[in-house]
């Protein structure tokens, strides 16, 4: 451990810490654009200037390791002047695009300008014009004029994704970021470049112009796209989820996430959801509330197990639920109903162990390992392939399916659904609509998605991660554990869910006294 002083505050840092990290550790702000802890040091934005000791020449904090007894100051007048001018140099050729720029609201230039700048521009000459709205494939739009050439994205494609698409061409203030001959930027991690872009030069086509960022709230959760279990932040408002960004976790995903994980928010939104329960009896559909449906399902199961015996009930579980939900489901099935035919529905057994070397895994379920643990705990050893025969031979007459939240990653979804429909009774827990479930007596109960419930997921290496509820999208949906509670005849404490309005903060309204 090393001792150093940041703006007079004494702190201890690890050996090899950079000054910029030490300043952050001491809770001081330090302006920087090019430095990113997940990438190599470029040292080109020249904003993280600090004064070290009495050295009259300012140093950049991102390329200076802390030494014992170092006295660091970034609130010195000299430093402030350097930052103000550094910012000015960044801004003189930056276009006035804030009104149409997606980054506005979370743009580092805006943040630093409000802090250090707030002056009239001194530049009277013309700005350098560069190319705008360059289409870089299906994911990203590039605006070279807005780019401040921090080279973060270039370093990302060089060092992290190792795909080498991006480069900086020409020199001087004619420098332009881009790909060779505007080739599309289509690697599996391309959208990380959008995240690390401190300005609006790289924007995501998916999010582009859909919302202004200040209308969105964010909450940390876990990506359920695959068994890696990246830590993510979802951005949402009362209309639904809008985007997903990675959050730093040294053990799981570092600073990054894959592009497939960024699409995982989509099935959560209302358009793709089952809004209320449905009971279909011989083709006659009847909508009913989820709670009612769960109670009905409970009664039905009780009766059926009594009449046909617990062996006639098959339970199919996917690896997309939380540990808590599995626990309650298994407890109910095994201990209460004595049902032991519990099957693990594996969606893509061929590609299950695929791994691209960075984050992306072939197992597209967040909690396969949690499910396996539970199955072991209840000592259930079944094989999904047995189920087909059992249905065909009519030994299993009732099937309860804890279906996938994200049906898109289940290529065999419809095929399986029609198989399950051969049983005379089908109870299906699903987040999205299940049109292929056409059994004689079908009950489809809407469930909550990962963003709407708290719970624990176990990733590929056995790390237990708990995620918290983000928001409620479908008010009529139940979590699996709540449904099980209702099925077993108990009541759940339902809190009345009022309209969740993300009230926007209005400067003038909140500070009315200052007007």
């Amino acid at each position, binding site marked *: 451990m090393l001792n150093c002083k940041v703006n007079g505050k004494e702190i201890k840092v690890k050996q090899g810490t950079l000054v910029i990290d030490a300043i952050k550790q001491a809770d001081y702000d330090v302006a920087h654009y090019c430095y990113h802890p997940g990438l190599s040091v470029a040292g080109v934005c020249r904003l993280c200037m600090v004064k070290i000791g009495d050295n009259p020449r300012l140093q950049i904090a991102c390329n200076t390791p802390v030494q014992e007894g170092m006295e660091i100051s970034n609130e010195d007048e000299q430093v402030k002047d350097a930052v103000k001018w550094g910012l000015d140099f960044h801004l003189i050729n930056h*276009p006035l695009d804030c009104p*149409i720029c997606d980054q*506005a609201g979370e743009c580092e230039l805006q943040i630093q300008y409000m802090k250090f700048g707030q002056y009239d521009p001194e530049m009277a000459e*013309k700005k350098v014009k560069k190319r*705008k709205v360059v289409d870089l494939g299906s994911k990203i739009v590039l605006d070279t004029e807005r780019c401040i050439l921090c080279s973060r994205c270039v370093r990302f494609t060089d060092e992290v994704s190792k795909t080498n698409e991006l480069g900086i061409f020409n020199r001087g203030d004619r420098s332009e970021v881009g790909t060779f001959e505007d080739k599309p930027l289509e690697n599996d991690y391309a959208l990380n470049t959008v995240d690390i872009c401190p300005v609006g030069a790289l924007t995501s086509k998916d999010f582009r*112009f859909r919302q202004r960022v200040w*209308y969105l709230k964010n909450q940390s959760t876990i990506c359920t796209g695959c068994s890696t279990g990246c830590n993510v932040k979802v951005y949402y408002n009362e209309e639904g989820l809008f985007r997903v960004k990675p959050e730093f976790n040294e053990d799981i995903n570092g600073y990054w996430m894959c592009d497939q994980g960024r699409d995982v928010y989509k099935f959560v939104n209302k358009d793709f959801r089952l809004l209320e329960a449905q009971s279909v009896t011989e083709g006659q559909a009847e909508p009913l509330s989820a709670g009612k449906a769960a109670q009905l399902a409970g009664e039905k199961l009780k009766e059926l197990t009594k009449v046909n015996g617990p062996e006639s009930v098959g339970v199919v579980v996917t690896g997309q639920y939380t540990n808590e939900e599995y626990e309650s489901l298994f407890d109910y099935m095994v201990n209460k109903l004595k049902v032991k035919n519990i099957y693990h529905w594996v969606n893509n057994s061929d590609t299950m162990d695929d791994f691209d070397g960075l984050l992306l895994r072939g197992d597209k379920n967040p909690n396969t390992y949690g499910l396996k643990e539970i199955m072991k705990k209840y000592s259930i050893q079944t094989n999904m392939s047995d189920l087909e025969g059992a249905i065909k031979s009519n030994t299993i007459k009732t099937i309860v399916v804890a279906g996938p939240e994200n049906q898109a990653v289940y290529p065999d979804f419809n095929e399986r659904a029609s198989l399950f429909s051969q049983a005379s009774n089908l109870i299906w827990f699903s987040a999205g609509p299940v049109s292929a479930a056409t059994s004689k007596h079908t009950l489809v109960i809407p469930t909550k998605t990962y963003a709407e419930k708290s719970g624990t997921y176990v990733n590929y290496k056995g790390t237990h991660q708990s995620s918290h509820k983000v928001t409620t999208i479908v008010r009529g949906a139940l979590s699996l554990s709540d449904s099980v509670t209702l099925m077993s005849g108990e009541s759940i404490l339902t809190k009345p869910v009022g309209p969740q309005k993300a009230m*926007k903060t209005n400067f003038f309204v909140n500070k009315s006294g200052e007007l």
Partner: protein
Amino acid sequence: MSIVKKPDWKANWYLIGIFSGLWFTLKTMVINIFNKDKMPTVNYPEEKYEYGPRFKGNHVLTVKKDGSVRCTACMLCATNCPANCITIAAAEHEDPTVEKYPISYEIDILRCVFCGFCEEACPVDAIRMGPEWQTPGLGHQDFHYDIQKLAYRANLKGGVLSRVDDEERHHAGI
């Protein structure tokens, strides 16, 4: 909760009030008959009052030289609106020099408090408070103003030109 009060004894002297009221009415009527010019009221709807140029009436969306809406869908007006009455949906324009434009821009005029914050927040002079103040309508739908109404209603005669021109700014090197 309302409390019923018993009438005061003074209320019995209401006749004085009635007559003094009648006298005032009569007096003003006579003055107005013989001194018509100084009468403060106008004969609405035959006559209409001229408001000052800074009057904040119904909103106008300005247009560019080519006639399209100037608004860039930056949402600053919607953010700034204390009554929460502006709803904008943005989209990508096929012309890369425009880039972003509103496919729908709605003002719920019944919620609007005519404070003018939207006008002040606008960075490109796209929204102004116009001189109109008559806003009759038959149902709720008539009070949701869309782009058609805000920018191209008949009395704007093809739209009001915005003072901020992209091309001029481009030539000036901004």
